[in-house]
């Protein structure tokens, strides 16, 4: 039955569809799933529901959809998804989309800051890994083939020189590459360690800084390079190409009530919240009634 919600294997084998299309084929985004209910809800619940409906809804990132597809298929085959190396033995994987603003100045972009609101990460969860995923567009014509040597992409916490992770790029090889672009993945687990107590954790922003340092194979690191020329400029990026912080946690809470409670707190006027808040009360009422009858 679950198979019905997953795009067929043929679709996966075909050229990758636009994430929005794949979401439509197999899974509905919040926008689509909620659409038919809006008039009724808005009419019944008045301003709170209408206000909730006006909020922008999430377009799931292709990486998360792909993760879900892979692990749910594995599950059907009886393979525990937490055994996958990519899952880092986590049972919860949360994605945070970059909220950083673009630097519109025409000057060379030497440093770029990525901002993530990680306040929803629960302290009760054990952090087992964190990755910064940056989409690097293929170098265009402006990227001179004359460029040689290596570029070192370095990620560190903002206002700190502590290096979290780095990647070496062969600029000559990059110039001849025909791919549209690729994702660069950095291990940023250390940036989330040690976790702060819950009260201080609220509204916490994680700020990570990227810089590229030039250098040759024979010589050491040199000057800082323009990130735009390396395909790392952030200007006018579609949602699917925005930087993503992926946090891997092992949740000790095994039931659905945490999410349901969170959802109810988030949307007080929503019908599902009403249904949820009603359910235990109704159950309690029945229990009370039966006890009274018995008495």
């Amino acid at each position, binding site marked *: 039955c679950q198979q019905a*919600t997953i795009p067929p294997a043929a679709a996966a084998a075909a050229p990758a569809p636009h994430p929005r299309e794949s979401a439509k084929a197999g899974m509905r985004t919040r926008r689509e799933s909620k659409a038919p209910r809006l008039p009724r809800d808005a009419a019944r619940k008045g301003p709170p529901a209408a206000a909730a409906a006006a909020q922008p809804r999430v377009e799931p990132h292709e990486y998360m959809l792909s993760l879900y597809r892979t692990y749910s298929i594995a599950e059907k085959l009886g393979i525990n998804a937490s055994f996958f190396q990519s899952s880092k033995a986590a049972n919860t994987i949360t994605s945070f989309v970059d909220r950083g603003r673009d630097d519109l100045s025409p000057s060379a972009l030497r440093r770029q800051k990525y901002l993530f609101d990680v306040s929803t990460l629960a302290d009760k969860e054990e952090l087992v890994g964190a990755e910064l995923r940056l989409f690097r567009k293929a170098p265009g014509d402006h990227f001179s083939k004359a460029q040689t040597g290596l570029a070192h992409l370095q990620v560190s916490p903002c206002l700190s020189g502590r290096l979290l992770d780095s990647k070496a790029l062969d600029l000559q090889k990059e110039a001849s590459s025909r791919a549209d672009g690729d994702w660069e993945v950095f291990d940023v687990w250390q940036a989330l360690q040690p976790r702060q107590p819950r009260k201080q954790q609220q509204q916490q922003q994680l700020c990570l800084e990227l810089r590229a340092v030039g250098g040759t194979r024979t010589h050491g690191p040199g000057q800082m390079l323009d990130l735009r020329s390396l395909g790392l400029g952030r200007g006018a990026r579609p949602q699917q190409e925005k930087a993503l912080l992926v946090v891997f946690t092992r949740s000790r809470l095994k039931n659905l009530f945490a999410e349901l409670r969170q959802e109810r707190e988030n949307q007080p006027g929503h019908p599902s919240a009403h249904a949820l808040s009603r359910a235990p009360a109704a159950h309690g009422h029945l229990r009370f009634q039966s006890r009274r009858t018995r008495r």
Partner: protein
Amino acid sequence: TAYNNRHGKRHGKKARLRCSKKALHVNFKELGWDDWIIAPLEYEAYHCEGVCDFPLRSHLEPTNHAIIQTLMNSMDPGSTPPSCCVPTKLTPISILYTDAGNNVVYKQYEDMVVESCGCR
């Protein structure tokens, strides 16, 4: 034993289904949860239904307590209820949803699908 034929099966109105796994199709949209669950929008959860009466079959993996309770029930149904037909093995499913901060989350939820039922 009055209702048992020579094959040991019951017939007529009093025949009751033994504890076993039955279909339970869950549709998150119908539950009104499609506003936070992205996928799957439906799945087969199964449920356990039927009676745990004497004699208990070994495939129902009864606990020693369930065996005693069933025996007591068979001797005097008024004194003790039969043991309960409940899930004995459950498996997880993957769920993709949006959290309170509108972040997309993948989570493996334990105990979402009934694999087998038994008497407890």
